[in-house]
């Protein structure tokens, strides 16, 4: 498959506007500016582009809602908070291919009649900030964005807003709060950001990768785009693979590639000839899978049918040497650390789960602890304010579901059997 999102990425100067232009950069924007905004939205719908931020929400539908809202100004916000552990797919775009994102945002801004765009960049990517700001300056200097984009009479101003270390700010309403200079507490929905978002105005939040699909999508048209990968959920997709594989890294593959293909065909299989023990397919919040469940097509529609989710496409591969109780505990430490503290089940429930897991991992597990974990997780599930808390509970439930033995063994042997 032709590399779209990661084109030029091996060129050390890939972030320069000249390099990007040389391979047809900003042609799509020029073309798109000649189209009526609603036609672009129609194209996106036809292409069946789904958001790459994790939930896989149909992008065209989101845009239509925002576009129908009569309020102006509208804001387009790029979610570059990439905080889901295991995820590093947006980083190469941000650091090495910033213009594809800028062009994508400019096209989207036109489609949405949004004249202001923000890139909400996680604080942990300090280098990307400078790169993006320089790229924005270049694009402005060339008249691609800014006032009167390419003589079209349309304006699009773009700025980078740096986060400061809070996973929850990846959640779009928390992100908007943070953009407004507040804590990252998720907002009550409805109203949805497409109607009442940043500063009370219609706001469209899309992932870096989603927006970066736009130049390509507009170049090839919806039919050609929809022909890539899964029928139900097409397009190129970035998969970031970490852990015990021979060739970890970011891979641009068609949607619907199976987990097994990713691990064994693209990443060269398990490191040091060890055996696979478990895979987290879409970032730490997605349900863990045992080795016999990896023949699943990786896309937003099919993964749930196979007991997990595509999430951010962050594949974490674990071999036999890994203690899964410890992994589960580490995941829960993460959720405890990142819980915003707004709602009771996440704030107190997740912390309780972590404490029980810590006991089990530390050799102080007691009979009944696993039932307790399940019940506490059950009391969290479906009652949290936002998906973060639910995600934490689901991590525990799924580790127990597939690897209960290992938990039992920790309790029985008062410690880790692997050590």
């Amino acid at each position, binding site marked *: 498959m032709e590399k779209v999102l990661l084109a030029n990425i091996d060129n050390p100067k890939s972030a320069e506007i000249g390099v990007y232009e040389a391979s047809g950069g900003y042609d799509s924007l020029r073309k798109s500016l000649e189209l009526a905004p609603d036609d672009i939205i129609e194209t996106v719908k036809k292409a069946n582009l789904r958001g790459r931020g994790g939930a896989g929400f149909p992008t065209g539908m989101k845009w239509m809602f925002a576009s129908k809202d009569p309020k102006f100004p509208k804001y387009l916000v790029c979610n570059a908070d990439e905080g889901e552990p295991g995820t590093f797919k947006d980083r190469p775009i941000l650091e090495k291919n910033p213009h594809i994102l800028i062009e994508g945002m400019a096209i989207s801004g036109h489609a949405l009649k949004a004249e202001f765009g923000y890139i909400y960049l996680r604080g942990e990517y300090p280098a990307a900030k400078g790169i993006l700001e320089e790229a924005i300056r270049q694009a402005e200097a060339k008249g691609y964005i800014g006032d009167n984009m390419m003589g079209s009479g349309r304006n699009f101003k773009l700025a980078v*807003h740096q986060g*400061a270390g809070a996973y929850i700010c990846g959640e779009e309403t928390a992100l908007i709060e943070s953009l407004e200079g507040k804590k990252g507490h998720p907002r009550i929905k409805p109203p949805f950001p497409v109607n009442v978002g940043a500063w009370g105005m219609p706001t469209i939040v899309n992932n870096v990768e989603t927006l970066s699909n736009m130049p390509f999508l507009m170049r090839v048209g919806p039919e050609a785009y929809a022909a890539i990968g899964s029928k139900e959920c097409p397009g190129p997709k970035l998969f*970031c693979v970490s852990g015990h594989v021979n060739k970890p890294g970011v891979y641009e593959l068609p949607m619907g590639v199976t987990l097994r293909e990713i691990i064994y065909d693209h990443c060269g299989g398990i490191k040091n000839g060890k055996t696979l023990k478990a895979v987290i397919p879409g970032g730490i919040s997605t349900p863990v899978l045992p080795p016999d469940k990896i023949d699943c097509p990786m896309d937003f529609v099919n993964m749930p049918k196979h007991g997990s989710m595509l999430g951010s496409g962050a594949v974490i591969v674990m071999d036999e040497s890994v203690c899964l109780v410890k992994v589960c505990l*580490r995941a829960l430490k993460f959720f405890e650390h990142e819980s915003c503290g707004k709602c009771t089940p996440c704030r107190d429930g997740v912390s309780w789960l972590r404490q029980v897991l810590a006991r089990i991992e530390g050799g102080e597990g007691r009979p009944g602890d696993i039932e307790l974990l399940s019940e506490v997780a059950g009391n969290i599930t479906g009652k949290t304010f936002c998906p973060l808390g639910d995600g934490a509970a689901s991590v525990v439930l799924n580790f127990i579901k597939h690897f209960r033995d290992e938990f039992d063994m920790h309790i029985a042997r008062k410690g880790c059997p692997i050590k």
Partner: protein
Amino acid sequence: MKSQIADELECVKAKYPAERAALLPALYLAQRKYGWLSAEAMDEVSRELRVPKATVRGVATFYAMYRHKQVGRNVIQLCTNVSCMILGAERLVDIIREKYGVEPGGTSADGRFSLVIMECIGACGTAPAMLVNTDFHESLTQENIVTILEGYR
């Protein structure tokens, strides 16, 4: 009496439709200037943006990357999340602790290093990884981490 961060802040404010939105950047500016966010630093931000100071503090303490005590000259931000953990990040913590006498969340006695345990910093494919100040260091090993850190005085 004009605040020192005022000028830079003017440019930042211009990016947003409301002054308040400049709060996160303003906190970064203050942190860069003072090294950490003391009560005085937050008070200064409060006055500059006309955001009540308790509100400023509420926001500043919500985010993990703002410092609320004096930190060392160099801040090691080491990831220990799952991808890094399964590739040995915990051992790296021990090495830093032993070699530089700094506990997670603490600062070495000579003020050279502070150690902060991070959640995933987006370098899992080249795990384990850390940020020292604003520099990424990836594919860390028990050997190369010391060489890297020795480059920071």
